[in-house]
C-alpha cells in the first residue's frame, strides 16, 4: 500500500492491522483450476529455459540469450509478468549477484551462467524454473561441482520432505543439510510459497512452524554461496505438495547443463 493510501485510511475511523501472513496462508492451498494455471506457467517457464539453452553459445551477449526467452513469454501470454536475470562468473564459478542481462558482456569459455527465470502465465500464477549452464573450459569449477552434489541431495530430500503435515522448518532442515554439511551458506531462503504473487508465506526456513498441506505450491531455490563469497549455485524449481510427497513440476533433470542437451521429447 502506498504511504498516501495508508495515511488517508489511518486518519479515518478504521483500525488497520497487518495481515500479510494470514492472507497468504488463506490462499496457499491451490484449487484444481489454480493448479492447472500453475502447470501452464511451469510449461512456459521450462520451455523458456530450453530456449535460453538453445541460444547459449560462447561469444553471444547475455541479453542475446535472454531476449528470445522474453519473446516467448510474451507470446505465451505472460504480459509483463516476468522477472528474468542472470548470475555469471568466470573460471567455472558464478558470482552470487543477480544482474540484469548485459548487452555488452559476452559469454566466454569457462563461464558458469545461472539464468534466473520467473514468470506468471496467462492464469496469473508465478513459477520459477531454471538450471545452471557451463560454457566449457574450466566450467563447472570445483566449488560448483561440490554445490551440485548438495543440490542433488536437496532434490531427493524434497521429494520426501514436502509432504502434507510436515512443518516448513523440517523441510528447510531436510533440504539444507547437504549444503550446511559442506560448509556453504544459503544466501537466500531455501523456498517459499508462490502463487498470484511471486513470494508468499509460508517461507521454507528456520523456525517456520507452518504445517504444509496437499496442493500447496513452493518455489525452491537454495542459493549456495562459498565461504569467500565469490562462487555460488542457484537453480530454481516449482514443487507441488502432493499426498505422497513433493513433485517437481518442470521435470528438468537436476544437473548443470552444457548446451549439448535437447528437450526430452526431441
Amino acid at each position: 500500500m502506498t504511504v498516501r493510501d495508508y495515511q488517508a485510511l489511518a486518519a479515518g475511523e478504521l483500525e488497520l492491522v497487518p495481515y500479510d501472513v494470514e492472507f497468504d496462508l488463506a490462499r496457499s492451498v491451490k484449487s484444481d483450476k489454480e493448479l492447472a494455471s500453475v502447470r501452464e506457467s511451469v510449461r512456459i517457464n521450462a520451455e523458456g529455459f530450453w530456449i535460453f539453452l538453445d541460444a547459449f553459445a560462447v561469444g553471444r551477449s547475455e541479453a542475446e540469450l535472454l531476449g528470445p526467452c522474453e519473446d516467448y513469454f510474451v507470446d505465451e501470454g505472460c504480459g509483463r509478468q516476468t522477472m528474468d536475470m542472470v548470475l555469471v562468473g568466470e573460471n567455472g564459478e558464478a558470482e552470487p549477484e543477480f544482474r540484469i542481462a548485459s548487452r555488452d558482456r559476452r559469454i566466454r569459455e569457462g563461464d558458469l551462467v545461472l539464468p534466473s527465470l520467473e514468470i506468471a502465465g496467462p492464469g496469473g500464477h508465478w513459477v520459477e524454473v531454471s538450471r545452471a549452464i557451463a560454457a566449457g573450459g574450466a566450467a563447472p569449477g570445483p566449488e560448483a561441482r561440490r554445490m551440485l552434489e548438495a543440490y542433488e541431495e536437496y532434490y531427493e530430500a524434497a521429494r520426501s520432505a514436502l509432504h502434507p503435515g510436515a512443518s516448513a522448518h523440517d523441510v528447510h532442515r531436510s533440504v539444507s543439510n547437504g549444503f550446511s554439511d559442506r560448509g556453504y551458506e544459503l544466501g537466500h531462503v531455501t523456498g517459499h510459497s508462490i502463487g498470484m504473487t511471486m513470494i508468499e508465506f509460508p517461507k521454507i526456513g528456520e523456525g517456520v512452524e507452518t504445517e504444509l498441506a496437499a496442493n500447496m505450491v513452493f518455489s525452491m531455490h537454495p542459493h549456495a554461496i562459498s565461504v569467500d563469497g565469490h562462487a555460488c549455485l542457484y537453480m530454481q524449481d516449482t514443487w507441488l505438495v502432493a499426498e505422497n510427497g513433493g513433485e517437481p513440476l518442470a521435470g528438468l533433470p537436476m544437473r548443470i547443463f552444457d548446451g549439448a542437451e535437447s528437450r526430452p521429447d526431441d
Partner: protein
Amino acid sequence: MSPAEVEGRYANVREALVRDGLDAVIVSGSEYSTRRARGSATAPATGAGNGSASMGSTT
C-alpha cells in the same frame, strides 16, 4: 475464470477474516502482483480493481 472459482478463492479469505475477527482486507497491488494497470482503486468483493482491491466486509 468461472464465478465458482472466483467465489471459492474469496471464500477462503473471508473464512480467515471471520476466524481472526476482522471486517475487511485491503489488497495492495504492484507491478509484480496484478495483471492490470497500477493504481489505487478499490472494488467490491466480487469485482476486480486496478492496483488494489477491497475484498469486502465479512459481516
